[in-house]
């Protein structure tokens, strides 16, 4: 153990001091919420007195107005009552004794093969074993608990998860684990239990819960999925690219980088260079869905050109018909000459 028994006792005492401060804050929170609720009650009492006066003086219009005020206050009371209940719930945790916290720190030291304490930053830390998930090596992590932050329990301010041998996602270097970004763990299902463990001074439980999240992959909600941890390989050129720089081809479903992908000039769908073909009529590149065959000549043309009869074979036919119409004009000229 890197901490002596005396230091461990001092840290346990420090932790208890901050937890006591947390408990005091929570009691003050209850008082504040209760003040809001009693304000509403006093409003109702004032309205009640007003109603009595209006009744005595037969001020019916004023009675109606006061009744509407009662409705509004009545609607707000459940909200303030709920706030008091939540504040009371937060006060239910007992602050453990220094001896209990000391025992917890001993347990953490045994569970994690060493507990470390930084005297300058008042940070308690343990390290995990090297972690690999779904064949992706992520390295080992330090779970760091900032003891003074226990007094406030602000989200994101109490603990950090630091990669000791960082293997970050290629698309985002700040993501060192699918559920850790910028040293902040998104605890997911463990959130409530972690807060409960910290507020109850169960430091070892806290570390164990964090470790359980780090050793589990939730593929439905990662910062970067493990499938894309090393980037996405372009199907065309093999270049590894950021997921934001890759697009699926709507025709063949493969993923391509920006260099290898284009779009259909007819429907605007993203299509790879391999799937795009030239329309013989308008010479635009179109996807297979927008390309068809001219029924007359079998030329590949886009549906738009087919509908508008713009296939080159139609133009040739019109030219041919135009040539057949020319001879009657020449006969007329010869007859005029004879006369």
């Amino acid at each position, binding site marked *: 153990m890197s901490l002596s028994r005396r230091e461990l006792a001092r840290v346990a005492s420090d932790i208890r001091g901050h937890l006591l401060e947390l408990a005091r804050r929570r009691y003050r929170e209850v008082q504040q919420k209760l003040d809001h609720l009693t304000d509403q009650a006093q409003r109702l009492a004032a309205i009640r007195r007003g109603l009595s006066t209006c009744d005595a003086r037969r001020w019916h219009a004023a009675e109606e107005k006061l009744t509407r005020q009662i409705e509004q206050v009545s609607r707000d009371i459940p909200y303030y009552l709920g706030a008091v209940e939540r504040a009371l719930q937060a006060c239910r945790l007992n602050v453990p004794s220094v001896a209990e916290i000391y025992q917890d720190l001993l347990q953490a030291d045994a569970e994690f093969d060493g507990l470390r304490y930084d005297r300058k930053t008042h940070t308690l830390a343990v390290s995990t074993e090297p972690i690999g998930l779904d064949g992706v090596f992520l390295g080992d992590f330090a779970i760091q608990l900032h003891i003074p932050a226990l007094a406030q329990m602000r989200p994101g301010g109490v603990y950090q998860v630091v990669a000791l041998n960082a293997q970050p996602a290629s698309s985002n270097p700040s993501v060192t684990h699918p*559920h850790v970004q910028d040293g902040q*763990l998104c605890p997911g*299902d463990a959130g*409530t*239990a972690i807060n409960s463990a910290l507020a109850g001074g169960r430091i070892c*439980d806290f570390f164990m819960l964090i470790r359980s999240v780090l050793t*589990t992959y939730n593929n439905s*909600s990662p910062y970067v999925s493990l499938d894309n941890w090393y980037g996405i390989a372009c199907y065309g050129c093999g270049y590894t690219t950021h997921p934001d720089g890759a697009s699926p081809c709507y025709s063949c479903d493969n993923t391509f980088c920006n260099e290898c992908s284009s779009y259909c000039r007819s429907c605007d769908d993203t299509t790879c260079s391999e799937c795009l073909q030239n329309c013989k009529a308008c010479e635009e590149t179109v996807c297979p869905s927008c390309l068809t065959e001219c029924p007359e000549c079998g030329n590949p043309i886009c549906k738009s050109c087919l509908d508008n009869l713009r296939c080159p074979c139609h133009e040739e036919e019109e030219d041919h018909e135009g040539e057949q119409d020319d001879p009657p004009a020449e006969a007329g000229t010869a007859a005029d000459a004879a006369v």
Partner: protein
Amino acid sequence: MKIIWINNDGGGFADYVEAEDGTTVERFFSEKMHGCKPEDHLIRVNRQPVARNHILQDGDRITCTPVKIQGAA
């Protein structure tokens, strides 16, 4: 007998619960964590790992922490 039961699979609250004399850890777990497998949890009695047939005593402290918990983004 009274046992301090801390279930970190969920809310993580600590409660005093009653258990019959002679209750083993295995039986206690199956009653409190019906449907869950002991091997999916880290079970500690008075902060120590114990065998499944360990018999609980009055005032014992049991914690149960899942080995796998899903994080998020």
